[in-house]
């Protein structure tokens, strides 16, 4: 049912200004969609990192696609600081909403449950809380004298976007133990997924596979994209291409270097990376 012809078709649904949730680098980022969104020239995205961003977010920022960024952190991991993110913040080129990991999860869980907010411990006295005008500190509203607590408003992404090793013939998507992908999809209005392959199976008919499956009920569109996480890892399928990530980290230190890298990345698909 939810299948589309190409990653570009999927990216075509994401309009300027959309709130897009993306997973962390250890959890199946769709680099294929990232490239397609950049190629399409989407603008003013509000990107929500769930909860940490990496190369995909850095590329989107560098390509001028991002207006607002909400994240607990953005980093290339072992490859160092995220260069275009760092530059954009230092130049005040994007609006940054500094968050902390559990607050991102809590905001998505509020949308998942259809409630306007979720309480969260900690945070009080941090500058993160101080600068988040959308968070509310209240004295224990149950009147039990448990002290002040922060209320995190529901975050409802327009799109959750990620990659997965496989979907079945009905568009049910394997997420394994990457449950943040399920929360993202529950919270988002639409979920767009690229997959290594669509397999002729019914994941929901097998109780073992069902345990790690996002049902198509929450999936708006699926497109095949071989090596769709490349150069990031797709755990269980392929490792990270560390040389490529390091090359990016080095070249993207300057804006011309980033532009040159981007031109190459958009020109060359890498269908062989999964092998």
């Amino acid at each position, binding site marked *: 049912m939810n299948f589309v012809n190409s990653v570009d078709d999927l990216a075509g649904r994401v309009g300027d200004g959309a709130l897009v949730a993306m*997973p*962390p680098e*250890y*959890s199946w980022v769709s680099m294929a969609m990232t490239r397609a969104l950049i190629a399409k020239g989407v603008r003013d995205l509000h990107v929500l990192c*769930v*909860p*940490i961003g990496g190369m995909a977010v850095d590329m989107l920022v560098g390509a001028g696609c991002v207006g607002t960024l909400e*994240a*607990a*952190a*953005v*980093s290339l*991991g*072992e490859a160092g*600081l*995220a260069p275009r*993110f*760092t530059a954009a*913040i*230092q130049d*005040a080129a994007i609006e*940054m909403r*500094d*968050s*902390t*990991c*559990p*607050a991102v*999860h809590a905001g998505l869980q509020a949308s998942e449950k259809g409630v306007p907010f979720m309480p*969260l*411990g*900690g*945070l*009080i*006295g*941090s*500058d*993160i*809380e*101080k*600068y988040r005008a959308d968070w509310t500190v209240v004295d224990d509203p149950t009147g039990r004298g*448990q*002290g*002040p*607590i922060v209320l995190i408003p529901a975050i409802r992404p327009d799109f959750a976007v990620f990659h997965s*090793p496989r979907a079945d013939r009905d568009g049910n998507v*394997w997420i*394994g*133990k*990457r*449950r*943040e*992908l*399920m*929360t993202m999809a529950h919270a988002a209005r639409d979920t767009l997924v690229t997959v290594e392959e669509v397999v002729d199976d019914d994941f929901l008919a097998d109780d073992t596979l069902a345990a*790690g499956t996002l049902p198509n009920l929450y999936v708006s569109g699926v497109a095949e994209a071989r090596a769709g996480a490349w150069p990031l890892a797709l*755990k*269980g*399928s392929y*490792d990270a291409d560390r040389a490529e990530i390091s090359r990016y980290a080095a070249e993207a230190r300057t804006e011309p270097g980033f532009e040159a890298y981007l031109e190459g990345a958009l020109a060359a698909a890498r269908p062989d990376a999964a092998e």
Partner: protein
Amino acid sequence: MSYRPEELLITVIARLLEDDPAVRHVAVGAASPIPGSGVLLARETTGGRPRASIIHGESNNPFTDGAREIFDCAGQGRIDVFFLGGVQIDGEANINLVGTTGAGGYPEIERRFPGSFGSAYMYFVVPKVILFRPEHTRRVFVPKVDFISAPGVSDPGVHRPGGPKFLVTELCLMSFNSDARRFRLESIHPGHSLDEIRDNTGFDFDAADHVPVTPEPEPARLDLLRNKIGKEIGATYPGFAAEVFGIEVEKTERKAS
């Protein structure tokens, strides 16, 4: 027996875990090979007392409920020790992971770092947070952080079962007293001095008249590290294991999903 600076820090961390029977479960965040090695070493020397959970680790990673589980788990009171660092750390144990600002302060940023990760939460709920920041300079240990990713102490009305207890650097081990809101020098690593520490610390701290020297890594612990722990931590941090322990680790075989 000669040792590398990383091996000293690993044994310092391991002792903080070994000596405290309340430490039943230690969680280690991403990109933390030295704390990770310290936990695995303590687990070995205590006959398995602290459970070690290494987030995103190829082994010792028990999490199956997604990225939020580590925070939920800490909120449930099931994590006794966690490690945090800081671009800046001040004398009240406030930590800054966001970056340095100009005179106007945040949101103006002079030098941006990745961000606060889960610190603003974990610092409140984990009873024994160990601050780990090898670089001991006035650039790091400042009078006042430019941005508080997580505060070192809280007002009495704030529910805060957790907070900072120790600070481990390349020069020394300090403890933190949240009532006094001050660090106290506990031991100085071999080859360093109180003066050197004062010169490189941008805040005042307490120190006894005679501060002990940090014990060197014992041969038995070094042996464990190099022959057992190195291989285990190498499953998650192969580069670290190769550099520090000279161990080339084969990627752990895991069944693909």
